């Protein structure tokens, strides 16, 4: 079964429904240690990436640090 989720404002269709945050990050190519993830405005703790199953319609934010003053 496929699902559609929103990541950083972009729509991602055709993802495997129920995939974990860990699997998604690996799929996108991001190393877990350098980022943070929010799902539906709630922080997903790094320790929960493996057990957090994503659902159709979820809205994710994936952030990192950039230069700033």
């Amino acid at each position, binding site marked *: 079964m496929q699902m559609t989720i929103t990541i950083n404002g972009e729509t991602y269709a055709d993802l495997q429904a129920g995939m974990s945050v860990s699997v998604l990050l690996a799929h*996108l190519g991001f190393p877990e240690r350098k980022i*943070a*993830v929010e799902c539906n405005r709630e922080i997903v703790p790094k320790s929960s990436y493996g057990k957090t199953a994503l659902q159709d319609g979820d809205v994710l934010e994936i952030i990192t640090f*950039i230069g700033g*003053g």
Partner: protein
Amino acid sequence: MAASKDKLIIAGREFSSRLIIGTGKYETYAQNADALAASGAEIVTVAVRRVNLTNPDEPLLVDYIDPKKTVYLPNTAGCFTGEDAVRTLRLAREAGGWDLVKLEVLSDPKHLYPDMEETMRSAKLLIDEGFEVMVYCSDDPVFARKLEDLGCAAIMPLGAPIGSGLGIQNRVNIRLIVEQSSVPVIVDAGVGTASDATIAMELGCDGVLMNTAIAEAKHPIQMATAMKHAVIAGREAYLAGRMPRKKYADPSSPLAGLI
């Protein structure tokens, strides 16, 4: 006081350098890292932003400035409400595990002055969540006192508008804030060149935070070195205690024994 024992203490954490530098506006992260090394700073401000999904291999700041060696101070640049600030810093805390943060809630893009009402409200929300808040604020001693009373870890009044490089515009207010505060006072924004940083430190500030003055200098790494010395010079002069100002000349060579 011996300089080696003169530490900056913020929320119980001890720092030898009183200079904090930003990481924005540099040509490359490599140049930023070199400027950091030259400045001797132990804290850098950083912004929290979405990753570039189209290029996961894009260089990241953490690849150049190691968060294990340099304290990252996540900011709330771009946030206009307390809720935005809390959301941003919760993400920062999750990404890096830090609770020491820089709160800035701005208003008009023309002057980037802090919205002090919203800054106060945001500071309270963050402190209630366990953050140690270093707060960018106007150079108004009344608001500075209120922010300290709320429990902010450091008061960071602007010297001049962000990125303007105009130097300390209101020395009287900065001095008043320094005198009344029992938490560190760090001039944040407005420094243009080394003497501006020295003046801030001579006024008794505990530190100086700057970004553009180094990043947009013709030679950023050389300017970073200059700023390191400027902050040390100002601090030492403040501790040494300047001579009184006099209305008339006072010869340095004795007049007695003239031939």
